[in-house]
């Protein structure tokens, strides 16, 4: 997890395009300036960043399901729940399931667990549109290699 670059996930550990599921891992850094403010003397991972981590995980699933031809943009978050604290150093396991792939949009269900315990979950929807420019597509290609995106899973 590189919070300063808004890279919330570290690696894809499982991806099943046919089933519409993905499992991602992300390690919360032990030290980061975010924790100086959230909160002084009591550092916890901000809930909005947990939502973002789930959204990024779901985004990779949708990129795979669209064979790396489309980008997912966050549209709505429903039933977002922060069930208990996530602390510096925690290893997050994020599971996402695609509930529905519509025309130009998708609905997903995401869960964050730490050591098997559910810490956060949400139903997250996206607009799913063709990559708006080659620069973003190139960036996502590079990111895919960094997080171990199985490119063969997205081969047409």
């Amino acid at each position, binding site marked *: 997890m590189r919070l300063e670059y808004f890279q919330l996930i570290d690696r894809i550990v499982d991806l099943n395009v046919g089933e519409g599921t993905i499992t991602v891992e992300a390690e919360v850094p032990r030290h980061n300036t975010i924790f100086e403010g959230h909160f002084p003397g009591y550092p916890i991972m901000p809930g909005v960043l947990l939502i973002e981590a789930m959204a990024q995980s779901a985004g990779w699933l949708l990129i795979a399901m669209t064979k790396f031809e489309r980008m997912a943009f966050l*549209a*709505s978050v429903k039933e977002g729940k922060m069930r208990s604290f996530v602390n510096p150093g925690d290893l997050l396991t994020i599971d996402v399931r695609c509930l*529905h792939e*519509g*025309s*130009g*949009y998708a*609905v997903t269900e995401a869960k964050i667990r730490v050591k098997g315990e559910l810490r956060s979950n949400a139903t997250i*929807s996206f*607009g799913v549109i063709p990559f708006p420019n080659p620069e973003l597509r190139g960036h996502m290609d590079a990111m895919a290699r960094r997080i171990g995106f199985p490119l063969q899973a997205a081969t047409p």
Partner: protein
Amino acid sequence: MSSTFDQVATIIAETCDIPRDTITPESHAIDDLGIDSLDFLDIAFAIDKAFGIKLPLEKWTQEVNDGKATTEQYFVLKNLCARIDELVAAKSAGA
């Protein structure tokens, strides 16, 4: 048609918190009911699920943007319901 309309009207009423009795077959989802594109995604999701179809929103949007269709053709509810019935029939024929 009436059954489809009843289901769609109920979905719209529940999704967008619009009084059910203000929704008629002549209502334009955008112009009359004030449904924006984000709320319409929720409606599309509910319709897709309820009818087992995939509303071709991207195709419709493209046609409107290209001037090949009007929003009335897809977003006046009686017309939307007719499109849904066509999609359901096409799905049944292909099954």
